[in-house]
């Protein structure tokens, strides 16, 4: 899922300051699963903002609404009426959702309430980890399904650097050294010799480095 984290209340207060009536718009997909912007979190955010404004003796009208997904227009349209009644929309979706909502309501300022961070998994309860960098040319077959682009801080393709300690990354001891995991996994699979093969430089054209990407499926364009 896409993982993100709510911005601090103080930052959000600054972002919505020019607007009196604000709609907090939640999303029921990725940000719901990482507890950043689902229906419950939207309710909490709206209430927290009201409390915050009240405490400062400010007049403000904070409303809330949640749609299934903010990355698809057909769902966003369900929020048309609440959106029409507000001065600005605070979206708690990922950055993609915020932009899609802005396209649907071009006459309303659409503001982000969440910092979108990574593509990841729920490693264990309450712990989300980054797993995929969206490089566009998946090489997981070479590396025993452990990605060195996303999970090695140096994106090394041909083996670990000298910095890991006890299987942990030199950058952060809370993070496993991806290469340690790759070696462990391939050893368990009896495929450690895979690592004998030289892996040439990545072609970054399929990644964000080549510019924002597109997927066109003609079979679905009617």
């Amino acid at each position, binding site marked *: 899922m896409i993982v993100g984290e709510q911005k*601090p*209340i*103080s930052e959000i207060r600054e972002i919505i300051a020019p607007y009196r009536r604000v709609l907090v718009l939640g999303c029921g997909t990725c940000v719901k699963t990482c507890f950043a912007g689902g229906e*419950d979190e939207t*309710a*909490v955010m709206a*209430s*927290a903002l*009201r*409390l*915050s404004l*009240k*405490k*400062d*003796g400010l007049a403000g009208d904070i409303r809330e609404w949640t749609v299934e997904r903010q990355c698809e227009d057909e769902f966003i349209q369900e929020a048309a009426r609440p959106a029409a009644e507000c001065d600005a929309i605070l979206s708690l979706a990922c950055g993609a959702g915020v932009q899609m909502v802005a396209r649907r309501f071009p006459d309303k300022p659409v503001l982000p309430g969440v910092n979108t961070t990574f593509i990841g998994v729920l490693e264990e309860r309450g712990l989300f980890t980054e797993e995929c960098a969206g490089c566009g040319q998946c090489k997981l077959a070479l590396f025993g399904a452990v990605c060195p682009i996303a999970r090695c801080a140096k994106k090394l393709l041909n083996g670990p650097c000298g910095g890991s300690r006890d299987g942990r990354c030199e950058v952060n001891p809370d993070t496993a050294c991806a290469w340690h995991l790759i070696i462990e996994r391939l050893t368990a699979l009896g495929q450690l010799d895979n690592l004998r093969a030289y892996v040439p430089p990545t072609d970054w054209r399929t990644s964000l480095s080549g510019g924002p990407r597109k997927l066109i499926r003609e079979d679905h364009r009617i």
Partner: protein
Amino acid sequence: MKYHISVFYCVNSFDASMLDRLPFKDRVVFKPVKMACSSMVKDVYLLRAFEADADAVVVLVCPEGHCRYVEGNLRAAKRIDWLRRLLDEIGIGGVRLVLCHASSGRANAAGACFESMLTMLEAEGFSPARSRWGAGAASDQRRNGKPQR
């Protein structure tokens, strides 16, 4: 003026009639909210209690190891910690939100909880978000060091 305290409780952990028997009951307006399981109270209801002019909010849950839903009270503790940090960030003060482990067999635990809550309110004063006061009045109150009646 009286303190407003919202009390979220479930019948497994608390007998609400106890509120009438507290020695300081004339200084407080209690708003009891009865639930099937107080551990499962949604975060937003705790915040809305503050929006509705609560000066403090108590969630009474069953003692550790005694939750009917096994982990409910553990999860509640974690969530309330999170909400307290949020209330600090907002500037209301996380100390106003309290989790108490109670048991209908030992009324003392809940009683002690309410007493320490009163002590806290005497130090902190009324919630800065209370409609009656607004921002200016709440800070006047704090400058004098004591809550106004």
